[in-house]
């Protein structure tokens, strides 16, 4: 088997705000994961949008690429087209059904087995270490958004209103 670019890299799925496109939540998975997506709590990626099916789709790695497969009659919308399955490329966005939530697929840097785990259990022992690079990047992305800057610059006024 020929090694394909990106196949050993962990992936990131981001739930985007439907109106602003700002990431609301994100999930990181190793390269060998099969990721279930839907509205019910049993999924790996749980979204609360009523237009998303309880079990809507899954994302998995094939021999040559990552793909998304819909298991819902609502299907997936990519570039305005309804599809049952599609090959995923880095930074590609997909909508779960015609009016459902929007997810962005991304390949992370570094091979999966060297991806730092935030929390690892070894028997009863565990080790907690935040991934500072990822943390700083996510904070910076939100900080640069207009709404965050507006909020930060209006803080004094907001708190005056609060304190009467």
């Amino acid at each position, binding site marked *: 088997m020929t090694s394909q670019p990106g196949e050993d890299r962990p992936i990131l799925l981001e*739930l985007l*705000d*439907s*109106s*602003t496109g*700002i*990431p*609301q*939540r*994100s*999930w*990181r998975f190793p390269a060998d994961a099969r990721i279930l997506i839907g509205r019910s*709590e049993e999924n790996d990626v*749980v979204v*609360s*949008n*009523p*237009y998303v099916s309880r079990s809507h789709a899954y994302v998995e790695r094939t021999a040559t690429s990552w793909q998304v497969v819909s298991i819902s009659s609502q299907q997936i919308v990519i570039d305005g087209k309804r599809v049952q399955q599609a090959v995923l490329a880095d930074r590609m966005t997909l909508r779960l059904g015609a*009016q459902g939530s929007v997810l962005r697929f991304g390949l992370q840097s570094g091979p999966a087995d060297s991806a730092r*785990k*935030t*929390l690892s259990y070894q028997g*009863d*022992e*565990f*080790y*907690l*270490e*935040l*991934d500072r690079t*990822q*943390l700083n990047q*996510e*904070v910076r992305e*939100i*900080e640069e958004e207009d*709404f*965050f800057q507006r*909020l*930060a610059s209006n*803080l004094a006024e*907001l*708190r005056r*209103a*609060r*304190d*009467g």
Partner: protein
Amino acid sequence: MAKIYSIHSFRGGTGKSNLTANVAALIARAGHRVGVIDTDIQSPGIHVIFAVRPGDVQYALNDFLWRRCRIEEAAQDVTATAVGRFDPAAPRPRLFLIPSSVKTGEIARVLREGYDIGLLNDGIQQLIRALDLDYLLIDTHPGVNEETLLSIAISDRLLLVMRPDSQDFQGTAVTAELARKLDVRDMILVLNKVPAGVDRALLKEQVESAYQAPVAAMLPLSPEMAQLASSGLFALRHPDHPLTQELARIVERLLT
């Protein structure tokens, strides 16, 4: 002056709404006027814990955000459910819930159109005045968006609820960092659904060190709480349960 507390978690399923409802009930039972506002408009749920049925709701938070009513008109008096017997002639205790609509069309409209965040802020201030609240608890939507950041920014204190797993820890750290950038210094952490057998002292030490914030409680994974599954107030049904004692410790901290 009323105190505003936001209760937030990075992901769903952390027990945030259950925690919010139980903490609100315990604060009310300590003799205060408390409001709980469900800003988790996309996936409302806290009304179930207070036994508010959809048929009881004439106006919800959504109606205020679409300018169909004043925010105080959306308040449900749930004191009897949360406190038990009380003197209706006395002003305290009282607990009010401002629910979000469970109607699919209303939820879809918010997802589709968004809403005026400034109006939410005005509503929160108006609610405190109209109901003469001592405490307002904001049950926020999971994740980070404009509305959750506003709630956090106007809060006197932020409670971050998380389970001991990698995604919760990493995502919660983002929220904590953003809160600091919004000058919210008073932050406390609640670890929920902590499995048996975990070295609790070590977990607490590592979490406090990573977040530079105190852990107010470590709630065990409780079969009774899971059984209730958002269908009642745990603290009221099981007043002597160790979990209720932990909840009481959170409340003690919030009242100081």
